[in-house]
């Protein structure tokens, strides 16, 4: 009973059953359905495919989806870092409660978040009624999409950066201070570089999440074609018109973007792990 090419024999039972069941389930639920997207797109000619993914509506939706997602991820990178900093280093009453609250956007159903944000920022909403007189319209504008994406991306940056800040080696800061660095210099030269990989990872995850987001955006955006329509909404509208190939084509674009981001996240993740290990 030697180890063969594929796996090493072990006395623990159940290898083939557990692997077999897992692979079967994975294929049926995930792999085969996902392949349907690419197979469907392959049935149309390259010209049709190109037309579907580069129509004016599609291009406008990319601009909005990618643009708002990027912007929201930036906002989250800045404020998420601030929140993580405060949680990791300072003490204040109710801190544990606040810490638990960070995960709310992650736990709250997207539709619930969607209607809550819409009603909040619409003309009669608690925030909306104060902004509209100032000329700031949030609901039913790209700005509203940004706000919604900030909401749902918040936990990613915080939870990515927080553990790194908590584990930070304070001795390095002491050393910098003893060498004459002021607080700002210590931050820029010592603390921030250590946190940068985690911040990048959090940014990428928030970006990826925002790209695919549907439920929280679809209410506040108003879904006006060419103006406030995100790509997922465009996909749904193609579906409703039974343009399966068109929907699949747009889906291919989104999937490629998501997978590329996933790759980036994994690379950034191993980068930060190597950095940590070097210490």
């Amino acid at each position, binding site marked *: 009973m030697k180890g063969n090419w594929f796996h090493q024999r072990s006395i623990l039972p159940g*290898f083939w059953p557990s692997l077999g069941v897992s692979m079967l*389930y994975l294929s049926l639920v995930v792999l085969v359905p996902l392949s349907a997207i690419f197979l469907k797109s392959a049935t149309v000619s390259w010209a049709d495919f190109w037309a579907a993914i580069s129509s004016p509506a599609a291009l406008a939706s990319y601009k909005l989806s990618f643009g708002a997602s990027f912007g929201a991820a930036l906002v989250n990178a800045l404020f998420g870092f*601030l929140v993580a900093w405060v949680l990791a280093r300072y003490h204040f009453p109710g801190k544990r409660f606040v810490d638990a*609250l960070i995960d709310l956007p992650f736990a709250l159903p997207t539709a619930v*978040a969607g209607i809550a944000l819409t009603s909040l920022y619409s003309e009669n909403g608690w925030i909306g009624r104060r902004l509209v007189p100032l000329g700031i319209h949030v609901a039913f504008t790209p700005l509203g999409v940004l706000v919604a994406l*900030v909401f749902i991306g918040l936990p990613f940056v915080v939870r990515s950066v927080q553990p790194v800040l908590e584990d930070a080696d304070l001795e390095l800061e002491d050393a910098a201070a003893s060498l004459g660095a002021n*607080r700002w210099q210590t931050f820029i030269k010592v603390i921030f570089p250590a946190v940068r990989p985690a911040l990048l990872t959090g940014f990428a995850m928030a970006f990826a999440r925002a790209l695919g987001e549907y439920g929280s955006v679809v209410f506040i955006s108003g879904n006006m074609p060419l103006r406030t329509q995100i790509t997922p909404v465009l996909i749904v509208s193609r579906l409703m018109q039974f343009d399966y190939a068109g929907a699949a084509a747009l889906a291919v674009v989104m999937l490629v973007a998501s997978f590329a981001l996933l790759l980036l996240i994994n690379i950034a993740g191993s980068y930060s792990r190597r950095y940590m290990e070097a210490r």
Partner: protein
Amino acid sequence: MNGRAASKDPAVLQWALTLAALAFLAVFVVLPLINIFGQAFEKGWQTYVAALTDPDALSAIRLTLLATGTAVACNLAFGIAAAWAIAKFQFRGKNILITLIDLPFAVSPVIAGLIYVLIFGAQGWMGEWLDAHDIHIIFAVPGIVLATTFVTFPFVARELIPLMQSQGTEEEEAALSLGAGGWQVLWRVTIPNIKWSLLYGVVLCTARAMGEFGAVSVVSGHIRGLTNTMPLQVEVLYNEYNFTAAFAVASLLALLALASLTAKTLLEFQMRRAAAEQAVEGNPEA
């Protein structure tokens, strides 16, 4: 945590940063949450209860529970099987398998719904065959269960795999040497050792399944009383401008979210405690 660090930054700066962070959280997280309940109770308690006991609302609740229960059960069984294969054995392609398991995370919910439409929809691969046999998947309950299963696919497996990998195989070998059979080993030795992470994965999986909107929206067809889950019901009511009822159902979902957050925090505490004990065990002093 870092009391020393706190004393480094000038107190003024500390307060300024803390207030800024809290203000940001208040605007972006707390206000929306309060708004939900505010809107739900705007017309009083009676209206609230009436909204929740409406037959369509009740059937939405039932459907949500059914889809969630099925999805969680299937993904739980899968998670244990996959974690067992990955953590207790050596084989090629393990990393590829782990990456594949994470795939649903990278897929937009709308696409998750789309893929099942492409297969089971009227014009999909199996559309004609299903029609001929009068089986309905899209625009019916099975489709909703499928879509929910897809989006919550990795949750349990992701929690179990690293933990089981770090626990190794010694206890299982010991159990086998004492005469236990395979299922006895799994039930009596392996699962008790992973119980907190298992529960954690189930909580995450359940919360996500209940709240899923995009994927289910695509496959459901929005048929009131039949293929509406709670989030879909919220959308339907909102689009009819029945705001109070929409927020009433939404408030129920929000309460569920808060409950799962609490369960999550408690479980994280247990998991950290179990991990600390395991670290001690690895270094028996005398």
